[in-house]
C-alpha cells in the first residue's frame, strides 16, 4: 500500500538510505538533548541541579531513584500527584474525542457545501483563532459562573470543543479530497450524514490522527483556564499541580522534574497510538478514478 517503487539494492540506494537516516539521527540527537538532560536531572537530588547545572554525564554516584520512589511512595504528595494525573487523563481523553468529532463535522460542513454563510463563518473561524485569550478571561469567567459550570470539568472543556485551529486544519485537509466522491455517493442515494461519516471520515484518518495528538497535547498542558474554573486541589490537573511546586519562596526541583518527566508518558502513548494512522493515510486505491 505504500509507494512501492523500484527497490533496487543498488549502492546508490544504500548510500542514500544511510544519508537520509543519518540526517534524522543527528537531528534527533540535538532535539533529544534537553530531554535527556531533564531525564538525568530527574535521577539526581535537586541540589545537584543547582550545584552543577544540567550536567550531562552518567555519573552513577550522584544518581538516585529517590525522586521517583518519593513520587510513587504513596505519601501525601504522591497521592496528590496521581490524583492530578487521573484528572488530567479524564479531561484530556474526553475533550480530545469530543473536539475531534465536533470539529470534523463543522469543517465538513464548511468544505463540502457551497452555502450562503460559508465564507462568513469561515472568516469567523479564522478570526476566533486570533483573539488573545487573556482579554476574554474575565468576561468568560463571569459567564461560566452564570451558566453554573464553575468548578466542573465540563466548564473546563466546553470552551475548547469548537477549536478554531482544528476546524481550520480539517477544512484544509478535506478541501484536498476529490469532490467526485460526494457526487458519486449521492447518485447512489447515500444521504449527507451517511457520506460524512462512512465515506469521507475514513479518508480523513491522517488528519484525525495529527489533530488528535495536537488536541491531546493542548488539553494535557492547559493551565490558565482550568485553573480559573476549578477550585480545590482534588480537582486540579497535572500542570496546575506541578506549577504549585514553583514558588517565589523556592522551587521544589526534586518532585517537579521527576513529575514532569513522568507526565510526558500518557501523552506519548496517545502519540504512539495515533501516529500509525498518519502512516496509513490514503491508500492509492481508495481515490483513484
Amino acid at each position: 500500500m505504500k509507494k512501492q517503487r523500484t527497490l533496487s539494492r543498488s549502492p546508490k540506494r544504500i548510500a542514500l538510505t544511510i544519508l537520509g537516516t543519518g540526517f534524522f539521527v543527528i537531528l534527533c540527537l540535538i532535539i533529544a538533548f534537553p530531554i535527556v538532560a531533564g531525564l538525568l536531572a530527574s535521577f539526581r537530588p535537586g541540589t545537584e541541579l543547582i550545584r552543577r547545572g544540567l550536567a550531562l554525564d552518567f555519573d552513577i554516584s550522584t544518581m538516585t531513584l529517590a525522586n521517583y520512589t518519593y513520587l510513587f511512595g504513596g505519601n501525601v504528595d504522591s497521592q496528590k500527584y496521581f490524583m492530578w494525573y487521573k484528572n488530567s487523563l479524564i479531561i484530556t481523553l474526553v475533550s480530545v474525542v469530543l473536539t475531534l468529532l465536533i470539529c470534523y463535522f463543522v469543517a465538513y460542513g464548511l468544505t463540502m457545501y457551497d452555502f450562503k454563510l460559508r465564507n462568513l463563518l469561515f472568516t469567523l473561524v479564522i478570526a476566533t483563532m486570533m483573539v488573545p485569550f487573556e482579554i476574554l478571561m474575565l468576561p468568560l469567567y463571569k459567564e461560566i459562573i452564570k451558566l453554573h459550570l464553575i468548578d466542573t470539568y465540563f466548564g473546563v472543556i466546553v470552551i475548547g470543543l469548537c477549536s478554531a485551529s482544528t476546524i481550520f486544519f480539517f477544512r484544509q485537509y478535506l478541501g484536498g479530497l476529490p469532490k467526485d466522491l460526494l457526487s458519486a455517493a449521492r447518485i447512489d442515494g447515500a444521504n449527507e450524514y451517511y457520506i460524512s461519516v462512512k465515506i469521507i471520515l475514513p479518508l480523513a484518518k491522517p488528519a484525525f490522527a495529527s489533530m488528535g495528538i495536537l488536541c491531546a497535547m493542548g488539553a494535557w498542558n492547559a493551565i490558565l483556564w482550568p485553573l480559573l474554573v476549578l477550585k480545590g486541589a482534588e480537582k486540579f490537573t497535572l500542570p496546575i499541580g506541578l506549577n504549585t511546586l514553583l514558588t517565589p519562596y523556592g522551587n521544589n526541583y526534586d518532585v517537579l522534574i521527576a513529575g514532569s518527566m513522568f507526565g510526558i508518558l500518557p501523552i506519548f502513548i496517545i502519540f504512539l497510538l495515533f501516529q500509525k494512522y498518519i502512516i496509513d493515510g490514503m491508500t492509492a486505491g481508495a481515490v483513484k478514478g
Partner: protein
Amino acid sequence: MKGKNFLYSQKVAPYVFVLPFILSFAIFWIYPLITAFTMSFQDIGAIKTEWVGLANYTKLLKDKVFMIAVANSTKYMFFTLVLLIPFPMLFAVLMDSNIVKAKGLWKAILYMPALTSVVISGTLFRLMFTEYKTGQMNIISQALGFGTYKWLKNGWSGMLALLVVACWRWTGVNMLYFLSGLKSIDSALYEAADIDGASAFQKFRYVTLPLLKPTTIYVLTISVYAGLAMFLESYMLWAGNSSPNNIGLTIVGYLYKRGIEKNDMGYACAVGVVLLIVALIINFAQLILNGTFKKED
C-alpha cells in the same frame, strides 16, 4: 418523515454540520468579545470604572515599551516563519520517502519536546543559556575559546535563545502537519511522474509543493498568530516577565504586564485588540492572496 427529509436535504445539511460552531460562537465568543472590546475604552479600577474614550489607544501609540514588544514579536514571528515552515516540510518529505529507516523512532523523538511542559523545558533552557559557566552554551563557547557570554542579556542572543526554544518545540509538530498533508496526496501522481521520468526535485516542485499548499497555508496561518502571541517561552527563559532592556518582551507579555501584573484591564484589552487586528490583517491578506476564500470548482 417530512422533517427528516428536510434535515436530510442538501440545502439544510451544511447548517446542521456547522451548528456546533454557531452555538459555541454565540455563547462563548460574542459576549466576551464585545465586553473585551468595550473594556478597551475604559479605565477599569477596583472601585469604579470610567469611560475614557480612545485614551488607552492614544497612550499605546506613544508607549515606547509597547513598540519594543511589537518589534520583538514581529521579529520572532518572521524568523519562526522562515525556520518553522520550509525545514519541517523538507523533513516531512524526507521522512515520507523510502530512504529513511526506523521512522517511528525519529518521529517519536521529534515530537517529544512538544509534550514536555513549558515549565520544565523553560527551566532546562534557562540552565543551558545561563551566563554562568555551567551552561551548555557557555561550555561550547569556552571550548571554542570565546569565554563565557551573557546569552540572555543581549538582543541578538536573546532572540536566538527564543528561536532555539521555538524550533526545538515546534519542528516535530509542524512536521506532523506536513506528514498528514502528504498523505492526502494521491500516490498515483508520483507514479505518473515516475513514468514521465521526473527527477526527485521535479516531483517535489511540481507534485508535492502544490498539493501541500492547503497544509502550508494552515501552518502559515497558525504560525503567524503563534509567533505574534508568543509569551510563555519568554516567560520561562527569563524566569519571569522582565528581561534586560526588554529584549524578551512580547506583545502578550506586555498585555500580561498591564492586565495581570498591574491589573489595568482596560489598557490590556487595548493591547489585545491591537494584536487581534494586526494578526487578522496579516492572515486575511495572506489567505486571500493564497486563494483560500475562492470557491472551489
